[in-house]
């Protein structure tokens, strides 16, 4: 390392290569990702968050909920995300385009929240969430500071917003527990989290050979367009305009979200797990 200039140019070039490759490359691919227009529904997906939900995302980040919760569902076969009812499909980039600060998270001390509003078998409602925030659980701290204790007037009834708590959590007589605006914003945010709409790129790819002809039964029930080419505006121009899916038969399932765990976990896991690169 004799020449200083070459040394620093080398350092700068190395940084530039990784930055250009990963950051600029992904920006070129995903930077102008547009919402997907569904003709049948006449709506675009994903949908904008409401104002209080957007505020709730800031509360989520402020309290550091990402330290224990992720918001990214993995593909079938990669863990038990589908079996736990967290989502039918892998989260894709389009799910996050309208979020000012996507909170992907890095740890699952608690469950994944990407599709909380449409979770199977049953999604929580705001009362459940507020109660959970107030009481905590074996793995989750209680967030009592998100609530205020109000004194009720003599003989007055608890207000509509008051939490209905029982047992050891029940407030003393004459008091009620009411969520603060931060708690309500947070709950509004949590209830706005949904990844139930299936975009064209979110569906498992059909393998080139027939090794996995049954590899995508979970894709059949979603309201996805039959012709791939015109319906995939964001597929970086490389989706070949081949014939629409041939060996995939429309499943009898008719609901928007397929509930049954499909055989795809084992099928898609096989090419991955026995590949030599593992």
């Amino acid at each position, binding site marked *: 390392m004799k020449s200083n200039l070459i040394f620093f140019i080398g350092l700068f070039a190395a940084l530039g290569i990784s930055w250009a490759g990963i950051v600029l*490359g992904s920006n070129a*691919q*995903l930077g102008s990702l547009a919402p997907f227009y569904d*003709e*049948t*529904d006449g709506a675009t997906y994903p949908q904008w968050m409401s104002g209080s939900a957007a505020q709730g995302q800031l509360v989520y980040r402020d309290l550091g909920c990402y330290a224990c919760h992720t918001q990214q569902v993995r*593909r079938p076969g990669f863990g038990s995300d589908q079996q736990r009812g967290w989502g039918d499909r*892998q989260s*894709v*980039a389009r799910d996050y385009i309208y979020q000012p600060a996507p909170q992907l998270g890095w740890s699952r001390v608690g469950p994944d929240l990407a599709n909380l509003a449409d979770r199977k078998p049953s999604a929580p409602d705001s009362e459940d969430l507020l109660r959970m925030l107030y009481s905590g659980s074996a793995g989750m701290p209680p967030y009592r500071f998100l609530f205020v204790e109000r004194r009720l007037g003599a003989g007055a009834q608890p207000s509509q917003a008051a939490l209905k708590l029982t047992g050891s959590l029940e407030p003393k007589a004459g008091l009620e527990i009411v969520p603060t605006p931060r708690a309500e914003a947070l709950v509004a945010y949590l209830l706005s989290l949904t990844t139930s709409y299936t975009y*064209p*790129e*979110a*569906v*498992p*790819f*059909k*393998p*080139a*050979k027939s090794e996995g002809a049954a*590899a*995508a039964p979970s*894709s*059949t*029930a*979603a*309201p*996805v*367009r*039959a*012709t*791939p*080419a015109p*319906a*995939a505006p*964001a*597929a*970086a121009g*490389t*989706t*070949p*305009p*081949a014939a*629409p*899916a*041939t060996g*995939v*038969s*429309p*499943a009898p399932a*008719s*609901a*928007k979200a397929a509930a049954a765990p499909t055989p795809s976990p084992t099928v*898609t896991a096989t*090419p*991955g797990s026995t*590949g*030599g*690169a593992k």
Partner: protein
Amino acid sequence: MSGKPNRDPRLDQAAVSDEGLLDIHERQLGRHPDDGARYRLLPIGILFTLSALILFSGTYLNRYTGHYNASIFDENAKPTAGGPAVAKLDPVAVGRSAYGGTCVTCHQPTGAGMPGIYPPLAGSEWVNGPSSRVIRIVLYGLKGDIHVKGQAFNAAAMPVFGKVTGSAYNWSDEKIAAVLTYVRQEWGNKADPVSADEVAAARNATGDRREMSEAELEQIK
């Protein structure tokens, strides 16, 4: 080597000066690996390790990057042939959601309609009859009376749904075909599904026009 062993944890003794450190390493760099015609294995070992890692990397990148496609999120995808495994649309499902979004307000979720106001679809001879007629009902709407199962309905008009003049809905042929397929197999109806081509053919044959009447419909086979 240093004179005294470094046993006192309070002070680590240096065994070489900074000048010495730089000297010995500079001399190390100047050496050639085959000094004295001895063959050193280490450069070969290093070359082998690097080559093996590069081979692994190249194979992995070829197999698991989905050809750097922005739409491929599953690393196991092999998009060299075929395309996204987008399923054929299930027309009944699409039709059900379209019905539930629009038609249900008048024809009711049970397809029974409202007596005297909205005709029933369940068991209706129009729904179960030739598809050419029911297609045109949805495409162009209705004006005047219509008789379903012996009852007359004229109090409310059937709106225009197709992509024709005066339509507020402008449904595509596929959507009309889907909703008709759904209706023709629901609530005990048993009729053939309707395809988008049939809807398109009906629209082309009749052209652009306003609402049809029952008499005109009965002319159509």
